[in-house]
């Protein structure tokens, strides 16, 4: 379902020096598979997720999702592809503050090019336990509730791949488990592949497959 080949990414530092960030020769995820990607701070986890989501372009290599190399798509094509096929959950939830919980979910549908499905948005919020909080704006929700809205939003367009970047980093242990369960359950029920980035061993321990970025990324491993 997801196949990464020889992707490299580097940044240019202010003094002009080139700083290599990623050099991943191979990485793949099967349809509906759930995996954890672990790595220490600065190991390039977020950069890798941005490339997988088509938010940034690698300097080289390919990212195939359902057989389509998204690195070959123009930016607008990647945007459309992302809206339709990829869900993204952020560490800081990234809900839009001016919008209610329901509107945040609907917003995820707006850019997909299809008519937003309000019923699905409500169903999703009901599944994450926020049926009675739909009209609440983010600042009226707890952090755990905010993250649940973020999960519902990421699932809004029935994506093929869900990328979760440290989704439990800002919440307490109790809510961590709720969010992890939620992600796993919803992905399982919708047949969505899940790549979850975390540095929490307890979270990683719940997944069958755990990859360490230090091992995948040659710029870190020195391989």
């Amino acid at each position, binding site marked *: 379902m997801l196949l990464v080949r020889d992707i490299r990414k580097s940044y240019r530092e202010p003094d002009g020096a080139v700083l290599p960030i990623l050099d991943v020769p191979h990485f793949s995820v099967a349809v509906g598979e759930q995996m954890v990607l672990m790595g220490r701070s600065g190991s390039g986890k*977020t950069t890798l997720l*941005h490339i997988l989501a088509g938010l940034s372009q690698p300097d080289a290599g390919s990212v195939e999702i359902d057989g389509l190399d998204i690195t070959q798509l123009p930016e*607008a094509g990647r945007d459309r592809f992302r*809206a339709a096929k990829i869900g993204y959950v952020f560490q800081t939830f990234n809900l839009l503050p*001016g919008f209610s919980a329901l509107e945040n979910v609907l917003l995820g549908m707006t850019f997909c090019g299809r008519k937003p499905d309000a019923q699905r948005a409500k169903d999703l919020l009901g599944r994450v336990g926020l049926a009675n909080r739909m009209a609440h704006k983010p600042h009226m929700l707890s952090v755990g509730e905010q993250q649940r809205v973020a999960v519902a939003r990421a699932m809004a367009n029935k994506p093929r791949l869900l990328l979760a970047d440290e989704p439990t980093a800002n919440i307490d242990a109790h809510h961590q488990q709720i969010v992890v369960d939620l992600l796993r359950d919803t992905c399982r029920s919708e047949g969505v592949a899940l790549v979850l980035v975390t540095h929490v061993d307890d979270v990683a321990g719940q997944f069958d497959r755990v990859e360490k970025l230090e091992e995948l990324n040659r710029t870190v491993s020195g391989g």
Partner: protein
Amino acid sequence: MSLWKIAWRSIQQRGLSSFLTGLSMALGVALVAIVLVIHGVVSRSFSEAAQGYNLIVGAKGGKLQLVLNTVFHLSQPIENIPYSYYEELIPGEGAHKGGKLSRGVEVAIPFCLGDSFDEFRVVATTPEFFEKLSYGSYGERYKCAQGRFFKGQPWKEWYTAVVGSVAARQANMKLGQKFPITHGLPHNVNAHAHDEVQFEVVGILEPTGTPNDRAIFVNMEGFFKIPDHAKPVPKGDAHAGHDHDKDHDAHGAADKQEPAAAHDHDKHAEPDKHEDHDKVGHGKDAHDADKHDAHDKHDAHDKHDAAAMPPGDSPAAKTAPSDANKHAEPDKVHDADHEAGHDTGPEAGHHHDHHEKVDLDEPLPENQREVTAVLVLMKENTEGLTYSQVLVRDINKGNVAQAVFPTKEVTDLMQGMVGNLRLILLVLAVLVVVVAGIGVMVSIYNSMSDRGREIAIMRSLGASRGTVMTVVLLESILLSLLGGVAGVVAAHGLIGALEPWIVGQTGVSVGMFQFEMTELILIPGLIGLAALVGYLPALTAYRTDVAKALSASH
């Protein structure tokens, strides 16, 4: 969820900033709307005020001045023209073949100007002004809100007045009120009151939305009787006024001048001729001559009693043929003047000598009469259309008077000075809107640094660069349009609130719901401006580095 809603939510999110930005836009647009509406109303009022007749004939001088003081009751009257000149413009009727200049003329209405009451100008004219002329683009007829128009006869009607709506309200004039008029225009330090002759308000006009709302119309015959208003006559012409022959058949040549010493004493000696005294121009001096004929003294006494009573109350007034004994009993005449209600103190300048005697029922001889202007309505047929040009040419060729097309003068004025003034005001107002537009730009642009994360979130959800750019542009358009609509509403609300004051001050009627077609330009204009000022922040949104913005939010 539509992009409009996303933009609106963004505006809501920055409530105070959005409100202040919208307010500045509203103020700018309100200014433009007010300029457009006021100018439109003033233009229409100017144009409509000059409707209802085709030409103005007056003394040689500035054309615009003639129009301004005749139509708009502004500026100083130029000079007077002989009454005989006015007579040349009077069209024929029945046996009367009409004046030499009357071809194609439907009606000619004299105006005598230069006097005032309180803050308002007095216009002395004939009843035909109300009966035969209209006003406005749709030819509305003058109507009285209270009372009636004054009439030509009997002589008591000569001392009656019809007051414009604004003048009546502001000067608190009521039906039946008597007032003297002041020789001179309002605020003229040399103006002086004429207490010898008082006019009774018999009618108050319905509002017309024209400068006539601020005028006081008095019967011209009474106006002539005010001492200063009689043109001095050379001694040789002392008896000139009374010429029945002239009255009957001498509405003749334009160069006709008053024949000297035309008074026929024998005619006055015949009692049956006295009926004519009410209708034709008897000379005062001529009647002074009559007094030596030792008329029936009882009649004369009756007449003085009539003078002592308010006009309309005297049964003897109609029949009193002359004032043969008044010089013999000057105190009685004087008392009569006072009893007639001349108790008003001087309001401006000096008082006239109260011992000056006025023959209330004697029309001023024609050779002592002058008019300031004549309003000429041409016939609505080919003859009228053809001869209006001929008439203007002929009159302007001579040395006595000039004729002008008031609508042309008004149009020239509007397109010239007033048009430029409007342009200047509009440019200033548009500049205010542009500054407000820049305010919108600054407001949105400043918010972009805070909104980088929002834009990045939208991008991560699949929004393209174009989409986020569109959202920012829509935000700018919404803010400008809402401010603009609020501005238009505020402008019309303000106009509505100030309407009574504007009408009171200017006589120009402006309505809250009086919209100008040019205001429609405001909408596309604002959208264009909003798109322009929104472009820079929208470009910033377009260029947002999503990965960097998302990383920064971690």
